[in-house]
């Protein structure tokens, strides 16, 4: 395809706006290749050591800007093996050598939770991470995407990287969520309806009247899972809700990019929230989604509440609301991993941790936990787990003879109580009032 001059009628999508800004251009159009300046580059303990080693092996002894790099130890927390401990030790040395202050050691939390929490993400930023779920930061109007370790070493050295400007698909969200139905259910519904590759190589914009009412926690869940429908970026444009979140975290930037009203989209889909039921993704793909009623009754061995998808205070509170005055069923392991130390503290203060412990939960350290199969609650053959995380691929949490179901915190909590997959609306609040 010939290199586009960008002279296409109409305005720019959010991705085009952000990449144009990052490339120092007035306009870019989907299909073009640009050399862009990166605002924030993040690595975690699975890849950080490799990235720094690549850098040193390439004869580079300084990073382009230590203030634009974040290093997080979150996947293996605390070190579950001597090998992991060695890797963590090397990461700490590299961080010292390269003068990186934005270093979150074991126990601070999950990378995609820490960056928004600490005000490191703002609308309009271009963010790269050695992690697929870097799309999470689109919740705050930033373009975030995953890259490999060699690409990341190049970014660490130069602060720049080539990108192809993606086309954009927009989901116009209308209506309102019913009680006990959440943004996790919305993104599962979208994955199930449109498929795991609907947004392949594309940027996704979440827009429409319901989008503007979504809280930041819900937006983080939606954008976190945008990569599961193939998206390169998944974004809510910065707005009043974003401003409210950032108020105590450094505030909004001077310019907040939004899509032009006459931008070109490769597809626009309307998604209605009002009739939506709680959803569950069945093994072994994220787009194999059914309303919970179709899978109720399936026996469970483990229930997991946590991850960068749904490990925030809002998620722990939602689970606590279902679990208050109740205990988990015998034979189910209930694991709870707060997404950050701050979330853990907030949940302690609010009483949520007490509710969870009384329900029989095992509270894990702030980190990725069993989500990716590293440690902290893996599955044996024949076991079935329901969790609030984002991937249920075969073997992801241990045995390839185990099954993983994905759902909202409420659905997972209700299922833990009953020992089987359960529609959370079946459980009344323990004070007898209507649920939610």
């Amino acid at each position, binding site marked *: 395809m010939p290199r586009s001059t960008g002279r296409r009628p109409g305005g720019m999508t959010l991705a085009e706006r952000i990449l144009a800004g990052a490339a120092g251009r007035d306009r870019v159009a989907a299909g073009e290749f640009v050399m862009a300046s990166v605002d924030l580059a993040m690595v975690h303990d699975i890849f950080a050591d490799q990235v720094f080693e690549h850098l040193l092996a390439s004869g580079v002894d300084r990073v382009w800007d230590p203030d634009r790099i974040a290093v997080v130890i979150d996947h293996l927390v605390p070190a579950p093996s001597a090998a992991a401990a060695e890797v963590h030790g090397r990461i700490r040395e590299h961080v010292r050598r390269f003068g990186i202050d934005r270093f979150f050691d074991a126990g601070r939390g999950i990378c995609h939770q820490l960056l928004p929490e600490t005000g490191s993400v703002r609308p309009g930023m271009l963010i790269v991470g050695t992690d697929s779920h870097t799309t999470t930061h689109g919740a705050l109007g930033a373009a975030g995407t995953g890259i490999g370790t060699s690409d990341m070493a*190049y970014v660490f050295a130069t602060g720049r990287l080539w990108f192809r400007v993606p086309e954009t698909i927009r989901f116009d969200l209308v209506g309102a969520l019913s009680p006990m139905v959440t943004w996790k259910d919305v993104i599962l519904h979208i994955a199930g309806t449109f498929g795991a590759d609907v947004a*392949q190589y594309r940027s996704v914009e979440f827009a429409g009247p319901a989008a503007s009412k979504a809280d930041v926690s819900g937006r983080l869940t939606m954008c976190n899972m945008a990569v599961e429908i*193939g998206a390169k970026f998944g974004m809510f444009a910065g707005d009043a809700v974003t401003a409210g979140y950032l108020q105590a975290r450094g505030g909004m930037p001077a310019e907040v990019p939004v899509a032009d009203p006459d931008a070109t989209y490769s597809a626009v889909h309307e998604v209605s929230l009002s009739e939506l039921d709680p959803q569950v993704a069945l093994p072994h793909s994220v787009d194999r989604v059914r309303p919970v009623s179709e899978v109720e009754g399936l026996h469970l061995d483990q229930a997991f509440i946590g991850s960068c998808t749904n490990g925030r205070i809002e998620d722990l509170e939602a689970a606590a609301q279902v679990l208050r005055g109740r205990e988990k069923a015998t034979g189910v392991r209930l694991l709870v991993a707060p997404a950050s130390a701050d979330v853990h503290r907030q949940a302690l203060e609010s009483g949520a941790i007490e509710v969870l412990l009384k329900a029989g939960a095992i509270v894990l350290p702030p980190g990725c936990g069993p989500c990716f199969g590293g440690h902290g609650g893996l599955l044996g053959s024949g076991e079935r787990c329901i969790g609030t995380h984002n991937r249920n691929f075969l073997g992801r949490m241990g045995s390839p003879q185990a099954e993983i179901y994905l759902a909202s915190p409420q659905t997972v909590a209700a299922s833990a109580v009953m020992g089987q997959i359960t529609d959370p609306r079946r459980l009344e609040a323990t004070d007898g009032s209507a649920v939610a």
Partner: protein
Amino acid sequence: MEPLDVRKLHTLESLDPGFASGVRPGDVVVAGKNFGCGSSRETAPEGLLALGVGCVVAGSFARLFLRNAVAIGLPVIQCTGASEAFDQGDQIEVELHTGRVRSLGTGVVLAGEPLPEEMLEILAAGGILALLRAQAERAGPSG
């Protein structure tokens, strides 16, 4: 993780157990849709490169596989219809800067997507780290 010399022998084995032993340097892998799907690590294209594969031509690529392939110096060309137009054993010629894919036997020519300057520079250097090293050397000590 096993050394690359061992890992490369398992490349594409679930598709074709004889693949690794049958590949000759310069061979082109031709594929259909979404080649590399589910892969996010450089290990995937590394195996192909280590076996001497000269290029991958596919109807479409999974995004991160394509990025990682370029980053390690494995040329990739997106070309609709390639898997239908060519058969195993065909001799083909691939022009990276034009995207032209031509069968030397039948003369069939397909117009794939040309690679942009940015990618050609990375591939010519032998990968993005090689490019980085060359840039660092040109810049002199301490950049």
